[in-house]
C-alpha cells in the first residue's frame, strides 16, 4: 500500500517538474502591461491622400473596343488560341497577338470600367465590371458587343465590410490614405484625385 502511494506521488512530482519549465517559457507570452494606462489617442491629422471621383453617367460603363492602349496597372492574364488577354486593373483588357511569340504585339483594347477578371468560352468573354458580370461577344474583337450585364453577381470583398475599392479602380500610388468610398455603388467610381484627407481614413498598403 505504502509503496503504491509513494509511486503515485513520485509520478506527480515528475510531471510537475516537467511542466514547470514550460510554464516559465510561456510566461513571456503573457502581457503584464495590460493594466497600464495606454497613451492618449492623437487626433486625426490631415495628410496628402486621395479622394474618390464619382459619376452618375452610366454611359461610361459601355463596353467598346479601342486602339491599343499603354499599360497602366497590368493585371491577370488569360490565353485563348493565339491571343493573350491581359487585364489592366480598373480599365479593361489588352488584346495581344501571340501567334509569333518573339513578335508578340499589343493589338487592341476592350474597355470595361472596373474590370479585374477574364474568362472566355468560344467567342464569348465573361468579365467583371465592378461587381457586375458582363457577357461580351468578341467574335470580332475590334467591334465587341455587350450581350448581357448581371448586376452584383461578383461581390469580391464587398460582403466583408472592409471593401477594398482599389481592387476595382486602383489608387495611383501605394502606402497612402484615401477617403473610403463606402460600399454604395449607385454612383460609379471613375478615379482618384490627390487631396488632403484625414489619416484615420482607409489605407492602401
Amino acid at each position, binding site marked *: 500500500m505504502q509503496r503504491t502511494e509513494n509511486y503515485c506521488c513520485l509520478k506527480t512530482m515528475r510531471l510537475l517538474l516537467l511542466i514547470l519549465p514550460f510554464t516559465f517559457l510561456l510566461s513571456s507570452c503573457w502581457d503584464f502591461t495590460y493594466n497600464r494606462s495606454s497613451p492618449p489617442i492623437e487626433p486625426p491629422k490631415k495628410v496628402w491622400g486621395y479622394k474618390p471621383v464619382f459619376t452618375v453617367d452610366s454611359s461610361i460603363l459601355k463596353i467598346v473596343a479601342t486602339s*491599343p*492602349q*499603354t*499599360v497602366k496597372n*497590368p*493585371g*491577370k*492574364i*488569360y*490565353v*485563348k*488560341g493565339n491571343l*493573350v*488577354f*491581359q487585364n489592366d486593373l480598373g480599365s479593361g483588357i*489588352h488584346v*495581344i497577338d*501571340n501567334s509569333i*511569340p*518573339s*513578335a*508578340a*504585339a*499589343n493589338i487592341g483594347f476592350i474597355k470595361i470600367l472596373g474590370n*479585374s*477578371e*477574364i*474568362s*472566355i*468560352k*468560344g*467567342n*464569348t468573354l*465573361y*468579365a*467583371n465590371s465592378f461587381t457586375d*458580370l458582363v*457577357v461580351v*461577344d468578341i467574335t470580332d474583337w475590334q467591334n465587341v458587343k455587350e*450581350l*448581357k450585364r*448581371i448586376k452584383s*453577381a*461578383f*461581390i*469580391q*470583398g*464587398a*460582403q*466583408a465590410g472592409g471593401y477594398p475599392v482599389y481592387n476595382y479602380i486602383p489608387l495611383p500610388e501605394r502606402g497612402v490614405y484615401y477617403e473610403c468610398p463606402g460600399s454604395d455603388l449607385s454612383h460609379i467610381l471613375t478615379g482618384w484625385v490627390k487631396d488632403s484627407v484625414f489619416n484615420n481614413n482607409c489605407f492602401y*498598403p
Partner: protein
Amino acid sequence: MPSIKNIRIAVVFFMLISMGCTKDGSNLADSSGSGTGGSLARFTIAANHLYLADHYEVHVYDIANAADPIKKTSVNVGFGVETIYPYKDKLFIGSRDGMYIFSIANPSNPVKLGEARHVRSCDPVVANDTVAYVTLQGGSACGPAQDGLYVYDIKDIVKPVQTSLFPISTPFGLGLKDSVVFICRGSSGLSLVNVKDPYAPELMYTVSDGNFKDVIPYDDILICYVSTGLLIYDISNLNQVKKVGEVIY
C-alpha cells in the same frame, strides 16, 4: 519474333499520334472551347459552366447558351477566397485559411470533397491527378504563414496530406508543367522547382527578368504576368527556359 517487333513499332506509332492529338487539342484551334487562366484567377470555365469565386462563395452559372448565363447556385466556401483552379471534374479553391477541393461531377452543383487548412496567408493552387501545389505567402497583407511551396498528396481526395513544405520567399502565382512548378516571386524573379518527388522538391534555378506575378504554361510557351506587362518564354527545354518575347504596350 517479327510480330513483336511490329507491335512495338505500332505502339510507338500510336504514341506519336496521340502526342500529336494532345498538342492540337490544347492549341484550341477549335474556337468553341474555353481558354486558360492563371493561378490567380477568380473566374473559371469548366463543363459549360462559369464559376465566379467571391470572397466567401463560388457562384455557378450555366453557359450552355453562351450569351445568356443562367444562375444555378452559390456555394459557401470559407473565409477570404482568392483563387479558383479547375482540373478535370474538380475545382481547387485557394482561400486565406486553406485549400478546398470541390467535385463538379455535377457541374451545376459543386460539392465539397476535401480541404487542407493552413495558417492565414495568400495562396493560389495548381494540381494534377495526385498532387496539389499551393504557394503560401505570409506578410502584413496576407497572414503569418511561412513563405513556401506547400505540396499535398491528393490521392485520397477527401483527405489531402501535406507531403512537404519547400521554403521559398515571396511566392505569388504558380504554374505546373510535367514535374516542374514555376513560382512567381515578385522582384526576386521566377523560380523553377523540380517536384518529381513530391516529398522532396528541388530548386532548379531562378530567372530574374522582371517582377513576376503569375504564369500560364501553354504547350511549350510560358506566358508571364509581370509588373510591367507580359513576358513570353520558350519552355520546351525546362533545364534552360528562354525569353522569346515581351509585350511593349
